[in-house]
């Protein structure tokens, strides 16, 4: 059988105020050609000015990928003519990119896997083209937006691994707030290389490249249909042609685009307008300090330290804000398992239903902790707890006041319950007699009376126990 060998090149737009080499605004606008500077349009005489924020975010990602960071950054030109590239060249990094030789840990099917990063480099995005009948329109808003391209080694062996890596990668961008990484807005895009080799072979097969795939589902589909296509060719004794293919997401097929012989020679050479940039060691150290604990590590910690299941831990780290909410809840004094249960089974569902983020949630970790503690102490039942939580969110009131206002808090105090039980016995002097005569269901009646008096606040099991004791005394 054949083994698939997959490499990914992931382009992700970095979140910055201005573009990578100009003062043009870096923000999405539905009005074409509004976020522009003369530099973005490549008017004669423009010069690039490197955006420090872009470099900082690129370095942060590089460090998070455990990459080697060079002492000096350099930039290069990649030359080709295309209407989405007004300068006729793209400024990118070939010689000394922000990072080389890194790795990213991922989880696939409960297993851990190390994905090797060949390099990650800072470059600029192109303009976007819209093609119509016999004309095309160019929107230069995207032109010059900082782009971080992360290239893996060919170390991925299935579409599942590829998607798991992409999800981890996107999460890392989100955790570090270096990109919004939204596929639907083209902020994260992917080139995929696929080749097949015999299980026991040592040499890689001929690779086929698919460019610019903009959703993880399509990456999955493209890999799967390419593996199928190549397997069939090899089974029938054919050979794979080195080429670039286009993935069509309508009929879920790949089509030939360009043969190897037609590959463009990009004539790379050093960008003369950007001198080599020395990276200050202290600055780099400060950037490293800003890196939060990342999802993979957090997930490991939650399982190890709090004994959470991988399922729950994974759910909690999916978003940094949720993980932070969880951790804050623990800091406030909640039991980790309880906190995890409340968040994963109640709160996440609510967020989903209401389509809001945890940042918009009225209930603070402190409030959740109070709620959990009321349930734990038995002052309210867990069923009541849920009701209180929803009421709290609905009325934007903290759970404690809801419990108080509605008189919900259970009476768990033995003395207090005892007093009411005795009161009920006083009002029903024949009850004990009837009970002893074998009418045991009178107990339920008595419990009901206590509940009536306390408006359901008496702890039912304590009440039951006390009534039985009194009957049998």
């Amino acid at each position, binding site marked *: 059988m054949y083994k698939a060998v997959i490499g990914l090149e992931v382009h992700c737009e970095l979140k910055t105020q201005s573009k990578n080499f100009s003062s043009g605004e870096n923000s999405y606008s539905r009005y074409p050609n509004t976020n522009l500077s003369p530099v973005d349009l*490549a008017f004669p005489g423009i*010069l690039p000015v490197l955006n420090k924020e872009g470099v900082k975010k690129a370095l942060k990602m590089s460090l998070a990928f455990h990459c080697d960071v060079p002492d000096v950054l350099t930039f290069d030109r990649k030359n080709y003519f295309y209407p989405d590239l007004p300068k006729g060249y793209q400024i990118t990094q070939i010689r000394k990119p922000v990072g080389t030789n890194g790795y990213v840990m991922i989880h696939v099917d409960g297993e851990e896997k190390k994905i090797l990063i060949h390099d990650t480099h800072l470059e600029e995005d192109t303009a976007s083209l819209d093609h119509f009948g016999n004309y095309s329109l160019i929107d230069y808003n995207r032109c010059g937006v900082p782009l971080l391209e992360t290239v893996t080694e060919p170390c991925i062996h299935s579409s599942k691994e590829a998607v798991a890596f992409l999800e981890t990668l996107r999460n890392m961008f989100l955790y570090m707030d270096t990109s919004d990484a939204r596929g639907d807005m083209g902020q994260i895009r992917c080139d995929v290389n696929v080749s097949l080799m015999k299980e026991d072979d040592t040499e890689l097969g001929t690779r086929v490249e698919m460019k610019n795939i903009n959703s993880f589902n399509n990456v999955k589909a493209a890999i799967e249909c390419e593996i199928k296509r190549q397997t069939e060719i090899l089974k029938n004794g054919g050979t794979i042609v080195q080429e670039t293919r286009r993935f069509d997401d309508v009929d879920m097929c790949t089509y030939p685009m360009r043969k190897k012989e037609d590959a463009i020679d990009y004539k790379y050479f050093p960008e003369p*307008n950007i001198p080599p940039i020395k990276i200050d060691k202290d600055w780099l150290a400060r950037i490293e300090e800003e890196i939060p604990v990342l999802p993979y590590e957090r997930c490991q910690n939650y399982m190890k330290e709090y004994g959470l299941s991988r399922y729950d831990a994974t759910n909690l780290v999916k978003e940094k804000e949720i993980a932070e909410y969880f951790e804050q809840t623990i800091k406030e004094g909640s039991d980790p398992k309880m906190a995890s249960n409340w968040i994963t089974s109640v709160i996440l569902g609510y967020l989903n239903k209401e389509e809001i983020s945890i940042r918009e949630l009225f209930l603070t970790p402190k409030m959740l902790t109070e709620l959990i503690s009321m349930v734990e102490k038995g002052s309210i039942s867990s069923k009541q707890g849920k009701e209180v939580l929803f009421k709290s969110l609905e009325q934007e009131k903290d759970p404690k006041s809801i419990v108080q206002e509605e008189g919900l808090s259970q009476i768990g105090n033995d003395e207090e319950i005892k007093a009411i039980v005795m009161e009920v016995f006083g009002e029903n002097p024949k009850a004990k007699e009837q009970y002893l005569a074998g009418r045991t269901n009178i107990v339920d009646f008595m419990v009901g009376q206590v509940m009536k008096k306390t408006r359901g606040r008496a702890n039912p099991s304590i009440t039951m126990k006390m009534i039985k004791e009194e009957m049998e005394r």
Partner: protein
Amino acid sequence: MNYQKMTIMDMSEKDPEKLFKEANTLAHQYQEEYNSFVTILDTFDMTDGKTKLRGIPYALKDNIATKGILTTASSNILKDYVPVFDATVYKKLKESGAVLVGKTVLDELAMGGTGTTGHTGIVKNPWDKTRQIGGSSAGSAAAVALGIVPFSIGSDTGDSIRKPAAYGGIVGFKPTYGLVSRYGLFPFASSLDHVGCFTRSVKDAAIVTDIIKGYDENDMTSLKDDGKCYESTIEQDIHGRKLFYIKEICDKNLYQGKSEILSVLDSFYDNLKKLEEIGFEIEPVSIDKDLLMALYPTYMAITCAEATSNDSNLTGISFGIRGEGKNIQEMIMDARTKGFSELIKRRFVLGSYILQRENQEKLFLNAQRIRHMIVDKINTLFQEFDGMIMPSFGSLPPKFEDSSDRLSEEYLLLENHLCIGNFGGFPSISIPSGFLNNLPLSINLTGRCKEDDLVLNMAYYMEKTFGYQGIVAGGEDHV
């Protein structure tokens, strides 16, 4: 005093509007004969600056962006192009109060050294209309040599200020790389491109440079402000300053039987003697001839490679003349086919070839290595010497009818050493130094990076010694 002979200092206190009128009249008067300008401005427009350049008329090379004013780079592909922003050098001059008189003709896209390839025709040498003024800053040189303006701005990638200045009998100064912002200069070869000035005195060159220099946040290669005033240090003592010249280029034995070159060299050595008399110490040094022979090919390899990339924005898509065709590739090809002359296309083809993956190592990277070897050699010499002094050229400006592409030995060496200044980014100045057959001769002085003040200081005494300050073509200074 005759307007045409006035230096910047002579013009201070004069009525700016009257000065502009003089300049404008002369610009029109000489235009048909010499063709210095692509655009002559007829409206006086002055910002009330408080500098020595307030009210001084000047000209800008037409590859420097001027918002709202046609800027063509003397190429058909940009013949109707009007920039949307100002080059930093233009902005600084505007703020200083200097008054723009016109945009000057250059060799197309600043590629070339003849002044004959601009889309509006050839520029003639004011000293002899049958000869070239040289290029690429041809019109800027001619305008100052004719006395239309006391100073002009040019760009210099190999010798494009210093050579036409030399042919025109005026001062041409290319400061240290990064001293003057390149923002808004249409690039030729970015790693070698410099903005500089033409004047009729060294002191004027210092005055202009004091205004146009300075850090620019729009140019990452621009230098931090040095806080110096070059004009104020120009008269410092130069006793004991040490200069060298390159034996392998200046040795008369190399040019037996070539009387014109020998006369140029005689004048050069006479001048060296005079400089020694006023306190300079001058020595010949030896540099590996193979290295010197590689100057021109190295220059061509680097400039063609960078130019082919730099000019890839000229497609007619986002600006410029839109080409015709069935698809975008055809449209780009049509615009570029019609927009560039054959010479430019030839350079682009060379540049693409040099950058091709299979040729990079042998052609492009070797050129970079040679560039470094030469610069290292000069820097080593600069540890001992304060400057390099050389004849700006070996042969008088070519006549239009007999210019050729021939690569003879003297062509390679005596005519092509000025690019050393670009390779190393060294400040370098050409000063008129005599006459031969009624045509000006010139000496070039190149110094250490960031020591523009010292170069101007030494050049000031040289100018004084040679005695050709302020000469204007056709004037009675003709010796």
